């Protein structure tokens, strides 16, 4: 099956190896006889909510993020419609912040977001940098990655995090939450990139995208050996345990 992927702002938001995440989705789809059709959606382009099974938004430096923020607001309705329609969304780092309600900078100015995920972000003094390990009880799995953000992200009451922080800072360095998930939309600060060392999550996204494509149940994807993936996960998780960030 052909999975239609919309990659938002790839020329602006690409700082933490976002193309690694796309490469992993593409290969793992291909290894199961599917195909990823990736289309770039940039500043000024119209986003057609019904044209994609999966949307990806990566991370950018502050300068690039500010350049796309206005455009994200213009695409907000289409992004909301896509999430309502169970399109799969993965937003990492800056992209995660842009999908929230707003981002308040150090001067107190509020930059509106797409309001797709139930959260907001406030700029903080100290950057939260380091290896992270998450426990995703909803999936019975762990996620390992690297975070580097000054923004503190606060989830609305009742909102679901992507995972509980085992080691590292997470959304705000205090709540013990990391990321957010709503319907098929996932936001996280974890890069590294995220998917090569967490193949179960890549497959979870692919299964949901395939279900969206044909309107049926999530298919069971043929298992892969994932030997290197498991090693990379273990090293990354061990780094988080030994040197993950914490304020206290």
């Amino acid at each position, binding site marked *: 099956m052909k999975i239609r992927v919309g990659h938002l702002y790839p*020329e602006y938001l690409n700082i933490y190896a976002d193309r*690694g995440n796309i490469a992993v989705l593409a*290969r793992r789809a291909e290894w199961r006889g599917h195909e990823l059709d990736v289309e770039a959606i940039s500043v000024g382009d119209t986003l057609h909510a019904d044209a994609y099974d999966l949307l990806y938004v990566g991370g950018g*430096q502050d300068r690039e993020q500010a350049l796309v923020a206005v455009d994200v607001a213009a695409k907000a309705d289409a992004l909301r419609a896509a999430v309502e329609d169970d399109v799969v969304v993965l937003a990492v780092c800056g992209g995660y912040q842009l999908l929230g309600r707003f981002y308040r900078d150090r001067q107190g100015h509020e930059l509106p977001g797409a309001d797709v995920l139930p959260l907001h972000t406030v700029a903080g003094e100290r950057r939260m*940098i380091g290896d992270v390990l998450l426990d995703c009880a909803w999936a019975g799995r762990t996620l390992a990655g690297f975070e580097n953000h000054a923004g503190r992200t606060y989830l609305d009451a009742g909102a679901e995090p992507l995972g509980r922080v085992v080691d590292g800072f997470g959304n705000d360095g205090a709540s013990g939450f990391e990321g957010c998930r709503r319907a098929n939309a996932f936001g996280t600060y974890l890069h590294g990139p995220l998917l090569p060392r967490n193949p179960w999550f890549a497959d979870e996204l692919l299964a949901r995208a395939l279900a969206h494509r044909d309107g049926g149940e999530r298919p069971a994807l043929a298992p892969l050996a994932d030997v290197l993936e498991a090693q*990379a996960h273990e090293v990354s998780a061990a780094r988080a345990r030994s040197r993950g960030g914490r304020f206290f």
Partner: protein
Amino acid sequence: MIPLGLEIAAARAAAGLSRLTGRGGGTTVPGKLLWKLDPGAIDRLARRLPAGSALVSATNGKTTTAAMAAEILRPRFRLAHNDSGANLVSGVASALLASQGAELGLFEVDEGALTEVAARVRPRALLLGNLFRDQLDRYGELELVAERWRAAVEALPASSALVVNGDDPVVGDLARTRDATVFGVDDPRHARPSLQHAADSKYCVVCGTPYEYAAAYVGHLGDYRCPSCGHARPSLDVVARDLELGGLEQSSFTLATPDGDARVTLRVPGLYNVYNALGAASLARALGSTLDEIVAGLARFNAAFGRFERIDADGTRVLMLLIKNPAGANEAVRTLVDGGAPPVVLIALNDEIADGKDVSWVWDVDFEPLLERVERVVASGTRAAELALRCTYAGFPAERLEVVPQLERALDRGLELRAGAELAVLPTYTAMLALRRILATRGHVAQYWERAA
């Protein structure tokens, strides 16, 4: 206050101790001690240099550029030079301590440490080479480093010479408000067909519109112009034209300066080394070197340690190319591919602080042209598995990929595969130091602090 002489004696003793205890070359220990005892001592030591100091900073190429400048300047000055690559305040302090009787200080400086070092040393010349995304976990975003550089340039004494790479939009723009020597490349034959993935500063520094490039050479370095507000590459004072690249042995170009033109031949390959040579030539010129001295110095220059360095290991040649960020690694890959890469390559990815704890950058490197050409990859280092995944997801066949995290075993495997021929080694910083240490233990190469002597 402790007398300066006593501080110096104590700090020098610490260097000897560091070497004796095997903790390293003592290249930063004495400086760290001095820095703790009395930070102002560095200012006073720098002021003792009769010909003053010159600083070199850049994301990529600062060690090589400073080494090239040293080769040009050596006939004219006795140098205090941190040629082991220790480039924080403590490294500069150590070099100052170690060079009795020096006339000119020549220091490569970490991008993040530039403001502080410049404020203390008060250089008579400052060379700023390029800014790329690099170890974001350490330096933060590129714009933060650019801000610091702007502050360093503003604080620079009016009498000091500023030398900038005009091909880098952010760096070239530092020359907008004051007199500067601007250098760059003019040879569209060697331009890239399009901007690379790792290009960073591709939006106009004035208005944010994407630049149009008449020629893009390395990452975002090139001949750019903003179609909206007209901000463009400044006019060049020192230019490289008619480049001859190709091969892994050398490169050459015509160096055009206000004092005349000359043909330069380098014993290192690659377009990025042409940029390094341009920077070194412009800096030396600002310090009084003649065109003849520049050409002769550049011709004498041999690779800085770990930067396209060739090491003979019992008849097998190790070609060591340090990689540390996407832009630099892309150029290492491009040079290897254009020059005819050996069929086996050892890539070593460590994740210590000096390498960057965040290894995501390897996914932003265009390894593909190299992977298409080599027969076998040995992946090593603390993050060998991650590196192997990078190759696998690029489509490199698993049966031609060997994952050997332990560096010495990986080196031996590479040497075995290439016995009597040449092995390309692409290590990150701490992996490079460790591999050199192994080769030194075997007597193939001098330790880096012995070289500095």
